[in-house]
């Protein structure tokens, strides 16, 4: 495995002082493919190195930050409207992931792009919220019956809903992992202590987010159950920044994490988080974390295979980092991801049905119609939905 230049810079930002033009070109390409130009800026600013970045490269980084700032403004506006709706329905909704980092004003939110607004509700409140959202111009993105049934029967969320005017997407969750597996997480253990944010002035009503330990563990669970890891490195870097922040703001954060992981039986995700933060990003772990990782390693299944998958895939997914190991790891991760989402007895019928639907869709299409996109005017191509 060749360590990508992007990872080398994340491990040791000061190496950019010795960069020539081709190093910068490569770094920008790898960072862009990992959706991390703004994250790069975060680390370079923290290390007081931003002045060492050539203007040309800085323009790209700043452009990315302009896009993110625009997204954040939009999200704040959506949250304001959503909070009013939840208040009217007398429902406590908890914001998750990107939206939560932004609302809680965590350092991680700086320059962080995300595509959906994620919220967690009690399962019995979902129907009510879904109808209310539909009345306000949100519609389900999945139109076919198979997809609807897949989400509603087996997943931890309902199909994403999109605002027909603004294009914003909301993911409504009732758990953090698919509910068709044996090991269902008791979500009330995570949501009961949700933090009430003091942001009434900007968002009309208070917003709720998960507590620091739950927030970190959720991020880890999400990353290490994922089958497609194009943005895996950014996910690991998210954990890195969250951990640095909470280790300072919380007392005994490592112990909090271990206790919580035991309570919901997710020690494995915590083990992976610490292990790969250390292995890939060379992060120094606390003594408690080191001891936990050492102990858990004895009982962790298939460590060598999992190491192969994640050490190969936590990199920029770019033509300059391609290798056969990478391709094999990506295939393994894909199947691992599917198997973690669904047991085989459900997965096989699901994939067969999906392939059949895709095949029949393909034969319906007239090939010549495909070219009717207006490539002349760049405005016809919406901004990348990352």
């Amino acid at each position, binding site marked *: 495995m060749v360590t990508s230049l992007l990872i080398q810079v994340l491990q040791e930002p000061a190496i950019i002082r010795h960069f020539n033009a081709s190093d910068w070109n490569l770094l920008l390409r790898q960072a862009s493919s990992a959706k991390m130009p703004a994250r790069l800026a975060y680390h370079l600013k923290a290390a007081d190195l931003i002045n060492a970045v050539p203007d040309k490269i800085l323009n790209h980084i700043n452009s990315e930050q302009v896009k993110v700032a625009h997204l954040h403004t939009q999200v704040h506006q959506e949250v304001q409207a959503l909070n009013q709706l939840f208040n009217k329905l007398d429902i406590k909704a908890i914001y998750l992931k990107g939206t939560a980092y932004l609302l809680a004003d965590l350092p991680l939110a700086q320059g962080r792009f995300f595509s959906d607004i994620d919220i967690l509700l009690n399962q019995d409140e979902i129907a009510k919220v879904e109808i209310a959202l539909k009345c306000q111009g949100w519609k389900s993105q999945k139109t076919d019956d198979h997809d609807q049934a897949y989400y509603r029967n087996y997943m931890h969320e309902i199909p994403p809903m999109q605002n027909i005017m603004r294009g914003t997407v909301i993911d409504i969750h009732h758990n953090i992992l698919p509910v068709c597996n044996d090991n269902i997480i008791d979500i009330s253990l995570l949501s009961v202590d949700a933090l009430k944010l003091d942001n009434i002035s900007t968002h009309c009503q208070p917003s709720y987010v998960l507590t620091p330990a739950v927030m970190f563990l959720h991020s880890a669970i999400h990353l290490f159950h994922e089958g497609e890891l194009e943005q895996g490195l950014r996910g690991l870097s998210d954990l890195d920044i969250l951990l640095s922040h909470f280790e300072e703001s919380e007392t005994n954060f490592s112990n909090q994490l271990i206790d919580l992981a035991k309570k919901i039986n997710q020690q494995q995700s915590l083990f992976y988080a610490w292990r790969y933060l250390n292995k890939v990003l060379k992060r120094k772990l606390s003594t408690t974390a080191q001891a936990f990782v050492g102990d858990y390693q004895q009982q962790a299944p298939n460590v060598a295979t999992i190491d192969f998958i994640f050490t190969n895939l936590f990199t920029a997914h770019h033509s300059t980092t391609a290798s056969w190991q990478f391709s094999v790891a990506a295939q393994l991760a894909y199947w691992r991801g599917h198997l973690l989402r669904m047991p085989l007895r459900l997965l096989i019928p699901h994939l067969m049905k999906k392939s059949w639907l895709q095949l029949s869709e393909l034969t319906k299409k007239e090939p010549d119609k495909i070219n009717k996109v207006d490539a002349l005017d760049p*405005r016809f191509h919406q901004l990348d939905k990352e």
Partner: protein
Amino acid sequence: MPIKTTLNSLCTNEIYQQLKNDGLVIAVGPFVFCIKSSLPSIASNVEKIYGDFQLLSHDDLIDFYVSIKKPKGLRRFIKPQINFYCDDYSPFLPLPASQAFPLLEWGMNWCIAQHAHHYLLLHSAVLEKNGKSVILPAQSGSGKSTLCALLALNGWRLLSDEMALIDLQNCQLHALARPISLKNESIDVIHKQACETIFGEVVDDTNKGTISHLKPSTFSVQQVEKTTAPFAIIFPKYQAEQVICIESTDKAAAFMNIIENSFNYSILGEAGFQAVAELIDNTQCHTLTYSNTAEVLAFFEELVS
């Protein structure tokens, strides 16, 4: 000032080899593109159209790695298609292989529109004479490119046919001096104007009809680094049989029109608002309806005299 090496210094085969192997690196206004393609039609058009552009190397900082590639598999042979890539990412659906060069041009526009948010970007032609720059914002089909080509062939310096780059720091216009994309009857109209015009390959049946690219004048490309302050904004509209008609545009209406023609106004937020406000405050704004070439050239001549 050191003498710059241009693409003209390479022979046909060298251009083809660079495009085919590591990529040909050229400066396009403030941006540096690395262009890669093994298609002979890309090589011949690039040689014909981009000859005056500055040649750079992989030891320079590069903004965009673009390529035009044939898809893998059977599609290489049956009704061949091509894809545009910005690095590893392909933002468009494939097009027939005959449209390779227009697709490269659109793709390069796309790169700038998606990534250059240190500028206010307008869908607009920009030309300069006597140190006075005129912005011509317009939607497709309004005759903007034809008018732009007419002016460029009559002593005006071409800054851009497709996109105005307005610096957010100082409201100065930056030039691209890219080829002018002409459609359908305009190609003949411009051909008749001057005998020394150089066109790229004429491509039929694109989704905008027949297309050909007019080579920018050597002096426009040589002065591409010269920025200018905007002097006037003219909203042009070609209308057959129409006697030239110039009306002063209300500033608020001009503001709204500029927003409609901007690629990134909404993304820029407050900086975008400030830039448009400053632009409108410092320029005269007119709507122009015309059909006669001599009349319209005389109007522009008088505007900047």
